[in-house]
């Protein structure tokens, strides 16, 4: 069999129906990847429109109403259509069964159903845009969300539906991790990305139902005036915030835990050194998932909680810093005395360490009640969560894409271009969001289409660099897809980074339709660089 006719999941079976009805986790992952990146660009485009509106004070490009729609859609699309589904749905789907040596996830049909449920929910979100948008902010706070005449119902319905996709993916992954591992692959021999997906899935199946029921209550409030969130009818709008953040704070960890997992894979492989503190990293994942459920009140310090609950929520919030710090230090210690190579995935991983640390530390500022009263709803918050979500999750996602691109698709991108783009993302990101910390400290509130003269300098600076950031991300992604078009194939047996996990050592690139040509046998742990030598092999 020549190389070109060799069977892999991309070329076998053929035909559009074999894709639309596929039960293959790799193909489903690929479909998630394409739709996720599509929404990423859509959300990013909206962000750029907002940034250009903010380049100067006054309404230059868009009106206040359009601006309100823009930030709502930017948030909702990025969070519910891209970040939450993208890493577990795309990279998780492609990699999880390979990493545990399984032929597929536990429930392939359910997996395909998840994808279609996600697409169906996305249709509602798209309908919202065509029908004139929604202006409540992605948090849909009552009482405004029960009164707004914009498309609150289609959007919340879309989110409700996507929630089910998230739950089903979580269920599928948990069952896969528990029951589908090959013999000998014990919990402590699992790649840390699998641990991260496990933590993520746990949060998905336990937090998402609460979001679902909250969205139902919100819709019923609009349709039937049930009064649960309406003070005029004896209800409590703050209860909505409690419900919403009981999901949405853990959801932050749905977004960041898989990113931690990606970084835990990239750093040891590209430093060619055994991961430092494997069990610490594994358990810190679970403890973050757990503590994440106890801190939702820190989003509501200005919503009229009792001082006692403010103190308790603030106190518990600091605990999140411990497992997160454990991870950061473990990654740094992994690199120490390793053979660090500045490959594109590693560039993103290093960016991540820098950006996420800033994001995490400013989170501690916001967790302090006294400071938060001042910083609440300012650009400081905006900068903080972009450092965590974009500087953390999306940078890690890009790193993961570059790391597993040759594995997943059997092609190699131009590494020089990729490195330049990675640098552009890093600089553009800091240029865009660092000024926003300063804006927030000086009192610039979020969600305004215009501002006072005193903020011009920082805002225009932020807008300038957001252009660089946008272009860099575009180049990074196009560079990846260009390798597809150019068919810059790698040898099916290649292992360009010298990875030690099953997807690198036991299957071809791109993998066989049934993952492994013969049942894989575990020969070493995921990061045993101190015991076994795995060559970097690339091309023929």
């Amino acid at each position: 069999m020549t190389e070109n006719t060799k069977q892999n999941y991309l070329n076998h079976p053929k035909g559009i129906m074999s894709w639309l009805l596929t039960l293959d986790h790799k193909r489903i992952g690929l479909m998630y990847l394409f739709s996720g990146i599509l929404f990423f660009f859509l959300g990013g485009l909206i962000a750029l429109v907002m940034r250009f509106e903010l380049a100067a004070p006054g309404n230059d490009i868009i009106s206040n109403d359009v601006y309100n729609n823009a930030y709502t859609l930017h948030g909702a699309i990025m969070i519910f259509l891209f970040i939450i589904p993208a890493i577990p749905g795309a990279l998780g789907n492609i990699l999880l069964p390979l990493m545990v040596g399984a032929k597929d996830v536990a429930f392939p049909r359910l997996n395909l159903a998840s994808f279609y449920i996600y697409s169906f929910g996305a249709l509602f979100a798209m309908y919202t845009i065509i029908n004139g948008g929604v202006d409540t902010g992605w948090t849909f706070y009552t009482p405004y969300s029960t009164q707004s005449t914009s498309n609150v119902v289609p959007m919340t319905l879309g989110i409700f539906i996507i929630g089910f996709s998230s739950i089903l993916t979580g269920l599928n992954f948990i069952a896969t991790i528990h029951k589908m591992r090959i013999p000998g692959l014990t919990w402590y021999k699992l790649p840390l990305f699998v641990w991260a997906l496990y933590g993520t899935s746990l949060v998905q199946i336990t937090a998402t139902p609460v979001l679902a029921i909250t969205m139902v209550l919100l819709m019923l409030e609009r349709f039937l005036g049930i009064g649960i969130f309406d003070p005029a009818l004896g209800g409590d709008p703050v209860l909505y915030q409690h419900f919403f953040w009981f999901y949405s704070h853990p959801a932050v960890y749905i977004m960041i835990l898989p990113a931690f997992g990606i970084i835990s894979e990239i750093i040891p492989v590209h430093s060619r050194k055994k991961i430092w503190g494997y069990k610490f990293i594994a358990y810190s994942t679970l403890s973050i998932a757990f503590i994440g459920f106890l801190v939702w009140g820190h989003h509501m310090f200005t919503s009229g909680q009792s001082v006692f609950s403010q103190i308790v929520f603030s106190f518990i919030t600091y605990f999140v810093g411990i497992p997160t710090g454990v991870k950061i230090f473990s990654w740094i210690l992994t690199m120490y005395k390793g053979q660090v190579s500045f490959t594109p995935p590693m560039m993103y991983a290093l960016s991540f360490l820098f950006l996420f640390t800033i994001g995490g530390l400013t989170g501690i500022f916001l967790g302090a009640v006294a400071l938060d009263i001042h910083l609440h709803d300012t650009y400081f918050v905006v900068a903080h969560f972009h450092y965590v979500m974009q500087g953390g999750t999306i940078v890690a996602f890009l790193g993961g894409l570059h790391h597993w691109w040759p594995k997943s698709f059997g092609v190699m991108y131009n590494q020089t271009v990729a490195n330049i783009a990675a640098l552009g993302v890093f600089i553009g990101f800091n240029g865009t969001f660092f000024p926003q910390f300063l804006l927030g400290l000086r009192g610039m509130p979020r969600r305004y289409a215009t501002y006072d003269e005193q903020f011009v300098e920082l805002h225009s600076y932020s807008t300038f660099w957001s252009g660089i950031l946008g272009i860099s991300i575009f180049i990074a992604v196009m560079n990846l897809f260009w390798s597809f078009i150019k068919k810059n194939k790698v040898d099916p047996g290649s292992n360009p980074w010298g990875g030690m996990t099953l997807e690198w050592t036991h299957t071809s690139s791109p993998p066989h339709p049934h993952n492994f040509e013969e049942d894989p046998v575990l020969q070493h742990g995921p990061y045993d660089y101190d015991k076994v030598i795995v060559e970097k092999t690339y091309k023929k």
Partner: protein
Amino acid sequence: MSGHDPNSPRHLKHYFHDVNQQYETSKFAMWAFILTEVLTFAGLFVAYIVYRSWYPDMFIDAHKLLDVNKGLMNTIVLITSSLTMALAIWAIQKNNRKLSVLMLVATFLFAFVFLGIKYLEYSHKFEVGQLPGEFYSYMGPDAVHLNNPHIFFSIYFIMTGLHGLHVAIGMGLIAWLIYSTYKGNLTSEYYTPMEMIGIFWHLVDLIWIYLFPLFYLIG
């Protein structure tokens, strides 16, 4: 490599090593799903607790507007249906297909009776206007003094409504089980779907066991 091994049991999917792994995986995922269900209802239980503590007197008086006898009847019906569901699984384990189908039909009928009684309760409430939120219009002598009784009925209708939806979904699943068992697709060798739907059905029962005292009994 692709397709089924001709020697392996008919129901074994190719991506599992053996029947036991497949069974364990289904069961594990089902329990995880049950956890999801519990959390869905948990949000509503929280709403119940919050408003009960806000309006304790109203909750006590408003609950007297519910029909305890119908609630009790439904409790008995649903617990019995859990028993027949369990018996259906026991029968299929003993390879007694006929008894299993019989028990499933009984479960289905009990579920139907439950929804029927629920319908009678709901239609009475619609008639007198004991409805959620803005639609509440009941002004009977036993309710004029109540403070925000529509909140009680909002929570009552949402919780029992969501539970009723689960009963209806359960009926659909049980109907499918009746068909599959009757056709001989489920046997003592392979009855995983019945066991999974059984777990779901017991959850539906269990939630009602909480709803009944919370709404009908606690005074």
